[in-house]
């Protein structure tokens, strides 16, 4: 099982200028922030279930950039239908990495459906996202980097993670308008 925080930090360490990073609410946003503040990131802190459709709209609008979404299994499970929309209105520049710890870790480690019988890789494939696979080790880092920067999207990687609480790392601002305007300025420049 992957230790999510160093894994996210490693992916973001030598990021290319054409990468824009979105994170789903809660832990994924703290994970991305732990890799250092960057105006090319936009993190959700609410609106659960909206990170995937947001990333689809962004990717459709910015075909020359690579869009990477880090989000959790809880956020993904809330909008499974959006995977069908991503598949049927495909964007070649979108990668979704689901940090799947099989639990709602921020609320007290209640198990999610992926702790039971649900397999998000199969859900993604069944929804029509052909480029979908599961990793269980940090050693698959190179494979994920290739998917993010070089492969035809949309793609969905299920990264099986340890279910452990990690320190909260707050973003530059909790005000969404500040965050989105900062992020949009990184696109214009």
């Amino acid at each position, binding site marked *: 099982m992957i230790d999510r925080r160093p894994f996210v930090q490693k992916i973001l360490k030598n990021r290319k200028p054409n990468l824009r990073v979105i994170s789903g609410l809660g832990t994924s946003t703290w994970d991305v922030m732990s890799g250092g503040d960057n105006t090319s990131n*936009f993190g*959700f802190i*609410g*609106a*659960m*279930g*909206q*990170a*995937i*459709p*947001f*990333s*689809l*709209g*962004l*990717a*459709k*609008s*910015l075909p020359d950039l690579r869009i990477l979404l880090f989000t959790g299994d809880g956020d993904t499970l809330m*909008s499974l*239908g*959006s995977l*069908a*929309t991503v598949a*049927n*209105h495909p964007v070649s520049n979108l990668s979704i990495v689901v940090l799947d710890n099989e639990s709602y870790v921020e609320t007290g480690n209640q198990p999610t459906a992926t702790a039971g019988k649900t397999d998000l890789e199969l859900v993604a494939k069944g929804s029509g996202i052909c480029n979908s696979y599961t990793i269980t080790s940090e050693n698959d880092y190179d494979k994920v980097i290739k998917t993010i920067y070089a492969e035809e999207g949309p793609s969905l990687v299920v990264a099986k993670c340890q279910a452990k609480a990690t320190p909260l790392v707050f973003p530059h601002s909790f*005000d*969404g*308008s500040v*965050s*989105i305007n900062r*992020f*949009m300025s990184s*696109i214009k420049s």
Partner: protein
Amino acid sequence: MTATNKDWRDDIYKVFKDLDITMVSHVPDAGHTPLINLCEKDNEIDVVTLTTEQDGVGLSCGAYAGGRKSALLMQSSGVGNCINALALPNICRIPFLTLVSMRGEWGEFIPWQVPMGLGTPKVLEAMDVKIFRADYKEEVGSTVDAAARFAFNTNRSAAVLLSQKMIGAKQFKNG
């Protein structure tokens, strides 16, 4: 005042073109169908069919962050699906425009449409969405134009309720 075309859907399409709205998402409704068809014929407009209306809120916000304007088309029954999603354009001050075809109000046949029809304005108001309403064909173009300008100029959420009186209540026949 926007010119009135033969079909009020043409007037909405004209507003989309005038204001450079290039992404239109929807869970379809018969009232919107002529507009969806017009948008699908237009190579400059991306039409995205959703599985649930709430995804149109996120999609629209992502499109705006990437520099494109969009509109979400739905039936009044879809408004309830969007409640928490509407927090996103609200807290981020992202312009959001939705056009809602009303059910459950004027000569409705299906009782199941009534609860959300009655709830639609209350839900939108509860989430700080500015409501514009069109009851007559002649006012659709100017109302959608006003709502779109309100949304995109003031970075707020706006909804146009297209009344069932104007769209026409479908009468169902058994058998």
